[in-house]
């Protein structure tokens, strides 16, 4: 697996009620077609990226998501 740079991106848990948030995210996708899921996730990423604001953090998150996709356990 390629190295994921460490910097501003938080790696430890930052949610008070992680299961609630996870369930809310998954449930928000219920009933959507594959195409709608892609459109929904694109909107969600843009909203959250704007909220985070810090470009270095966003770039690091992009690299991390990409790294686990290319070399990760569940790649492909």
């Amino acid at each position: 697996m390629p190295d994921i740079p460490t910097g501003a991106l938080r790696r430890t848990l930052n949610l008070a009620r992680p299961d609630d948030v996870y369930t809310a995210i998954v449930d928000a996708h219920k009933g959507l077609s594959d195409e709608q899921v892609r459109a929904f996730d694109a909107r969600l990423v843009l909203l959250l990226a704007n909220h985070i604001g810090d470009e270095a953090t966003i770039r690091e998150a992009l690299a991390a998501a990409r790294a686990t996709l290319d070399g990760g356990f569940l790649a492909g």
Partner: protein
Amino acid sequence: MGSYDYRHYCYRRPPELEGKSVRRPVVIVGAGMAGPTLALGLALRGVPSVVLDEDDTVSVGSRSICQAKQSLEVWDRFGVAGRMVEKGIVWEQGEVFLRDTPIYGFSLQPEPHHKFPAFVNLQQYYVEEFLFERCLAEPLIEFRFRNKVVGVQPAAEGVTVEVETQDGRYTLEADWLVACDGAHSAVRHLMALPYPGEVFRDQFLITDIRFKGDLPKKRRFWFYPPFHPTNSVLLHRQADDVIRIDFQLGPEADAEEEKKPENVDRRLRQMFGPDARWEHEWTSVYTFSCRMFVHGRVIFAGDAAHIVSPFGARGGNGAIGDVDNLAWKLALVAGGQAPESLLDSYDHERRAAARENIRQSTRSTDFITPKFPASRAFRDATLALARDFPFARALINSGRLSTPTSHSASPIDTADTDNDWVRGPGPGCAMLDGPVAGNGDGWLIDRLGNDFSVLSFCERAGDRAPLSLPADVAGLLIAGDGAVAPSGWTVLRDCEDVLRQRYDARAGTTYLIRPDRYVAGRWRRFDTAAVDEALRRAGGHA
């Protein structure tokens, strides 16, 4: 079956068949884990009961194996938890694997200083055997094996129960009927009550084997393991070198085919390798549902009232929570010391508990068996991120294991009036155990009464009682060294300095603890009038 010797308990011709009929305060249907626990809880408070069961032996198969701390604390009051801990496998560690790599380990009891461990794995047949033995030695409990309920007629003031035996049918008149007769409750069917809920289509192969070899005393969960690459597998240790393995099969599997010993062996061979040896104990294929139901002069408890998925050990432990909540209330109502409306709080509180258990176990089920592609994508993304990102490990949900549920806004609890609590169990939460000293070292849970208890904290106890308490309320005063016990109070020392922490206590802090060891109210000062009022409310006299 191999390691366990199923005893058959004696059927006795019921006296009603000779025309000797007496009205019973409480009839319990079902001798599983919940029914006998309720009978013992009632007997502890002097209320007799009759327990009817259509069978004459304990649970066939290990079924509910993870006995949680809060259930052990209930059974400890009847003196049977020690046997269970001794016989069972104590475990506090869990491990989650992705493919063949451990990605997450957890400890269920992160803090020391509790009498009981987070979990003891013990087959349901042992739990029932120990409970049955205790019940059979209790004069207030009448066990009737091979007595099948075939009719239930509820009325305003009681219930008429029709019972079938090998010697014929008879009728029992009861003030209260409690259905603890499981997921396929005969009482519920006889009353033609609907049982709405969500049915899950995924099938699981569950198999118990006696395993020759060493395995760690941990719960192990695999996502996509090499030996079962398309789904998940769960492994638990049990007593007598028995292990439980759950293979997730998916909705399309052929249950009859999967259950065949040669097919189970093939799966086990892939899992344990060519040299492993085992013997079969029990195999079953199950699906499950999440349902909920509670009712009036006929009271439902355990699986007869609500069903959860097995992830999280919430079925058996939820049932024990139900009957422990019910026992003291039903004893007060049956004894004429409380109005019937006290039982409304059973409905309120255990409905909240069932909702919480169903919510938690449904979430685990959705994580383990995602229902739609996006759900699976998020699940797999969580697993993929887990190695490098600790936050993702916290999101892996292979079963959030049973802890005592809380309820809010119960009609019999008293809400906080002081607003400076930073921790500690509030009204509706389970009390917390801890070590105490005073008349020998021991545990706080052993010093509470069978009725209400008041737990007060002070710097130095003197002759003067901090509060005046009714005679049947146990007063426990946590004080410093050399304190004198005021009349009617027991003085205990917080010997490991953990109770002050756990109860967010300072001088004057007072907790009112119910007979089921839940907090009914708490205050920052000694206030006899406030405690009196809370006691009245908790007894249904508000």
